[in-house]
């Protein structure tokens, strides 16, 4: 699992889509998963690189596409996948934190309309220093996690 995430992070870093905040947070390759019809929730993934010298944290997010946006993670315990809401995603100075399937994600709850691949979803990332960073995350069709390898 760790190896997969590492690989995934590598792929993300090579992606072209980068957005930089004033506080030195670089968002790489954000995307939102397209969901089946009638599905009311989705998740956004991205890489978050803290290029500043101070630790930062993501403490929330907002989007006009969903009623509620929360930060979530998955932990696997005794063979059970447990998804949990978390208050913050810590972004250590100089490091890249990857939000990827099976782990950290921005959860979109109560989608206001269907998500069509190719469309963009506006996401506002809220940092612990109060900075708000607006990004556009394209909607992508679900793919098996390792598809980037070929």
């Amino acid at each position, binding site marked *: 699992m760790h190896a997969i995430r590492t690989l995934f992070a590598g792929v993300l870093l090579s992606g072209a889509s980068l957005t930089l905040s004033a506080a030195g947070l670089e968002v790489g390759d954000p995307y939102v*998963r397209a969901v089946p019809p*009638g*599905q009311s*929730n989705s998740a956004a993934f991205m890489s978050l690189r803290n290029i500043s010298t101070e630790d930062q944290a993501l403490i929330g997010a907002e989007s006009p596409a969903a009623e509620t946006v*929360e930060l979530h993670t998955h932990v696997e315990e005794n063979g059970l996948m447990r998804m949990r809401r978390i208050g913050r995603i810590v972004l250590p100075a100089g490091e890249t934190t990857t939000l990827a399937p099976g782990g950290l994600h921005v*959860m979109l709850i109560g989608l206001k309309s269907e998500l069509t691949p190719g469309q963009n979803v506006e996401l506002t990332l809220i940092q612990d220093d109060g900075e708000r960073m607006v990004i556009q995350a394209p909607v992508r069709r679900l793919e098996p996690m390792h598809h980037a390898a070929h």
Partner: protein
Amino acid sequence: MKRSSIAILLAAAVSAGILSCLEPGPASESSQAPLELATPPTGGDFTLDSAAGPVRLSDLRGQAVLIYFGYTACPDICPTNLVSIAKALRSLHPAELDRTRVLFVSVDPERDDPEHLARYVAYFHPNVLGLTGTPEQLAQVAKRYGAAYQRVEDTGSAMGYLIDHSAFTAVVDPNGRLVQTLGHASPPETIRAAIRTALGTEP
């Protein structure tokens, strides 16, 4: 919310060794009765509801059947597995695909009625059937297949409640025998190989 009682029932199926339980282990010399938690999944017949009416596993003899337990409000784990399964299905020969069915069993009958499930699974592949049942039926089926899940009420999330669940796929051969389980996020190639092994078509 009386269904919260299912959580207790179902927690009984939780086993860290779900996967390894399928391997015939050394015979236990212990004089103690085996814990229920350690009971290996045995598989077996069941009937659950689909939008097209009841589906009985024994009606699917002659086919390889993949069984996955999850819920449609699951934003990540279930779709990830269903996408991999769908990709495996698309890579089968037509004659193999004809003999392969996937059962997506929702353990969230409160939110997932058969009609909603039918729309959900059709997004992935036409050979996927969405099934659910009463909490008691689901508990029994899950236990037979070694699946575990529990409803979590107090998450502080707008989701209302979440369902922790195991994320493996059970593989049933054309004779109705549980022959293998595939772990979470198994790649499509692994799933395809398991289907072919079950069908006896090719490695």
